[in-house]
């Protein structure tokens, strides 16, 4: 099968994720969308690895998964902390870091 199909699917998933990150305000959904972006990238990596017949891309994909797991851990931790402190669960409300 042509590599272009894989890349198209990958790009679509990535764009859905990016759109979600930009438009949604619930941090949980933002995290989910981030996962989508990462997995879109993973799909592209694995496709390229298959195309070239080497393992490099697969290893990159594995590293990205580890990274995603870490990121989700931190992100969910933050969400739980926000919930416990009874702050609004809305990324637009959490804007104290402005200059």
């Amino acid at each position, binding site marked *: 099968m042509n590599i272009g199909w894989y890349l198209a699917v990958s790009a679509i998933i990535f764009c859905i994720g990016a759109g979600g990150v930009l438009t949604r305000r619930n941090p949980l959904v933002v995290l989910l969308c981030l996962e989508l972006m990462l997995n879109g990238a993973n799909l592209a990596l694995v496709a390229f690895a298959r195309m070239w017949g080497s393992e490099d891309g697969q290893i990159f994909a594995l590293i990205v998964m580890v990274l995603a797991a870490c990121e989700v851990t931190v992100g969910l931790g933050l969400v739980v902390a926000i919930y416990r402190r009874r702050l609004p669960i809305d990324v637009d409300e959490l804007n104290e870091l*402005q200059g």
Partner: protein
Amino acid sequence: MSATTAAWLVLLCPLVGTILIATGYRFWPGRSAGWLATAAIAASFVFSVITFIKLRGFSPDHRTLTSTLWNYDVSAGVDAKLQILVDPLSVFMILVVSGVSALIHLYSVTYMTLDRGFSRYFSYLNYFVLSMLLLVLAGNFLLLIVGWAFVGAASYLLISYWYRRTTATRAGIKAFVINVVGDVGLVIATFILFRHTGTVQFLGVFHAVPHTFAHNGGAINAAALLLLVGAFAKSAQVPLHTWLPDAMEGPTPVSALIHAATMVTAGVYLIARTHVIFEWAPTAADIGAIGGCATLVLAATVALVMTDIKRVIAYSTMSQIGYMIMGVCVGAYSAGLFHLMTHAFFKALLFMAAGSIIGAMAGEQSLDRMGGFRRALPFTFGCFIVGGLALSGLPPFSGWLSKDDVIAFLDHRAGAFLIMGIIAYAGALLTAVYTFRMIFRAFFGDPVLEARELEEGHLHHAEVPHNPMSGEEEDTDVGFPGPGHFIAEREVPMKVAMSALAVLAVIGGLVQIPGVDDAVTKFLDPSFADSKYAHTQVSTGSAWLGLIIGALIAVTGISIAYRIWVARPGTATRLRERFAGPYVFLWHKWYFDELIDFLVVRPALWTGRLVDSVVERSVIQGVFTGGASGAVRAGSAAVRRAQTGFVRYYAALMIVCISGVALYFLIASG
């Protein structure tokens, strides 16, 4: 052991003493630090004697030795070496310095026994002796400057030794600042000499001076005058003299050591050492002689009215150093140095005796409160009389022979120098008067309370110790004088030190009697062989004539003092009332402190304030630091707008930017 090895050991002993006492100050029990310091200086004296003996083993033409331990830097025309010069002049100086210092250390062991900070005192004292020996042994101008500055620092430490006395710390700062003026003069003089001769070695410079400089030209006179600034600051000559009377705030043995016997003679040594330069710049030499002459009269007149016993002796020191400076500036080198030696003996003795009286008065120093100590302090009285007679110049005491040696040379050079000689005789008359004024007021007359108590065997102690200058109450903890007071009658080390100096004050002059012996001149001759005055000999007849005039003047002075203060009590008060104007003038020390305050200190303060308000506040703070921080502040205010705090905004920005970068590379690679 060669002469130079012994000379290095002369320096090593006080260095080791300083380091041991300073680093182990907590561990030295009782008086051991004092004994260690005394032993170090005594060892230094022994090595000085060995150097002397070894040097005598050479023929007179080969008595100039140099020794280099290592080179700091010998490149690009700079020859900075750790080098000493061992010649008769430096050996003469180390003998005097280490010998008198050893005795003063011995005296201090008792005098400072109960003072808190005993070890600190002795580490400073050893450090001072090290600096002074380094100064006189230095083989080049750089090491001389090091010794010169060390001596100034040691002087500061010792004057301010009782550091909780504000008067003492002020006096220390004053001494240090005026000494630094001298240091600057010396450094610039060295630079001028180095620039013209290309070397800083003494021997190299002296050899090159006649070839490189025009005789009595501008450059050599500038160098000589700057050397004079250094010498005048260190030797307390007019107008850089105001620190010396204030330096009497230090402990009395310190006054004996550095403000009478050794440090203040450094200027005399400097001029004698660089006599080649001064002979090539006669104008500067004459200015130096005039300065010395002015100082000897000025200081003697002030000494007539001072009431603080130590300040009277301090002014007499200035006056006597005036004689020496005048002597070495006109070419009477060996006479000036001979007077330096005898002066070290009798002036140290006078200070030690004064310390004993101050001990009996429980720290009080004013002559107004003293009187009648003749029977209570017989030993101190004897020492004071010996020192006083030597200072006044009565035969056969040492001061008689040495002072008139200088004056005879002045008379021999005739012309304007004869006037200086006459002024010097006038100064000698004043010397005899003020010296015996001090003796008559302290030892004769009705015994004061302290003297009567002492006659019954009780040493007076003040109920509350106080500062003799300002009258402030003090305690006896560290930073103030300790609770103990000591008189030579009861303490063996003080007695030994004073006896030794008393003997030297009597017989020290006998090494050089016109027509009989001239050991000092003969020994110092190789150092001054290149001088144009080397063969100037005062005839024995005129020398003896001078000695007889000197003796007559001393007798006259003493009898005047006797008439005023003993035979007719009350004469002094009548004189003071009759000559109220001159009295006030002298009481304010010719208004030199006020003059320097007006000419130097206040303008400096005003300049400082002006610079503070204009340059510092407007230019530096306003323009430089204010401008820089303003620019940063404005820039950051502009950038801060981008930080909105909205996470989605950041994410969008990131996506747009990364897409932009990716697009750029795609287009660029395609």
